[in-house]
């Protein structure tokens, strides 16, 4: 199964999820526990993806270079906490990553 097939299958599955209740809302009522859990999907998915990606960047680098992604992520967290802006993470994190990568690889 190549990338094209995977994208196609994930797209088809997503469409089925979208259509799943549209024709059966009168007959089906979701349990409240499932209803509650739905809003946790995005933040948990984001967390799992973010830490996996950061850890992947660190594992692939040497000891001094591995510090840069972790420091950039830490600065990003602090920037968002400080400003409350979502984009502060990128605006603070990327320059941190560039500078530290430059310093640690010099």
């Amino acid at each position, binding site marked *: 199964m190549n990338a094209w097939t995977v994208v196609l299958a994930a797209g088809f599955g997503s469409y089925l999820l979208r259509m799943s209740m549209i024709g059966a809302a009168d007959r089906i009522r979701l349990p409240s526990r499932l209803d509650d859990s739905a809003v946790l999907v995005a933040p948990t998915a*984001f967390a799992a993806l973010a830490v*996996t990606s950061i850890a992947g960047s660190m594992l692939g680098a040497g000891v001094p270079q591995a510090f840069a992604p972790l420091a950039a992520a830490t600065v990003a967290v602090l920037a968002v906490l400080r400003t409350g802006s979502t984009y502060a993470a990128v605006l603070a994190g990327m320059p941190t990553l560039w500078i530290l990568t430059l310093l640690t690889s010099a």
Partner: protein
Amino acid sequence: MFPPSLPAVAPGQLVNVKVRVKEPTIIRYRAYRRDFVGGMRAMVPWLIGVAPFGLVIGVSAAQADIPTLAGWLTGPLIYAGSAQVATIQMLDAGAAPYAVIVTAMVINLRLILYSGAMATYWRGTPLWWRLLGGYLLIDPSFVVGVERYGRESDRRRGHAHYLGGAVVLWVTWLAVIAVGATAGARLPDWLRLEFLIPLYLIGEIVPKLRQVATRRAVLVAAVVAVACLSVPMHLGIAIGIVAGIAAGVTNAPGMGRPAVKSEAVSTEEGHR
């Protein structure tokens, strides 16, 4: 003579004429143009919020070790930002195909809830409308549509409003992904643009940590995902998500019911 195809008949003669009446279409653009445009306007704040995320996805599609067009196709096919990110990232990392598909499906499980909510408003509509409306259903279009359906007695006006917002979102989303993919392929490696995604995700997560249930869910998901880094097929991500959700909905003593409803779809959450 009208209609011209009728045969000539004598005055007073009774004729049996079958008239085919075209079924009323669900939305007549001219009649509901104002509602359609109103839906487009209501979507503007969402567009500003989701455009950078679309650009990041486009850049990641260009940087990933998959055909750029395949990465872009996650837009029209999956049409859900976080699931698109997961799909591109996991394909780039060489994850097993089934793990990628399962992860995308888990992330998109909330669409079942949106589907159930919209179904009550789309009862009695033609099949083509349900197929189209369902395809366009995602967090921003859901919010824009439901908000209008809730205060509009004329369902057809609500349909026009939903469609206006959903269409402009769809077009914008695919366009910004294409821009990101085009620009991203030409940018130098030292920029390390692949790191945009985890940083962007951090920006999305941190403001939500005020909720106890969300904080617990995020922490557990992160810890479990890291602990499962060595799990084959990159299933650690899916395991982390499930563990995080389980932790979030589990009522620890004194914590009460997870307060998650109100944070369901915030503006910044955008095109998840």
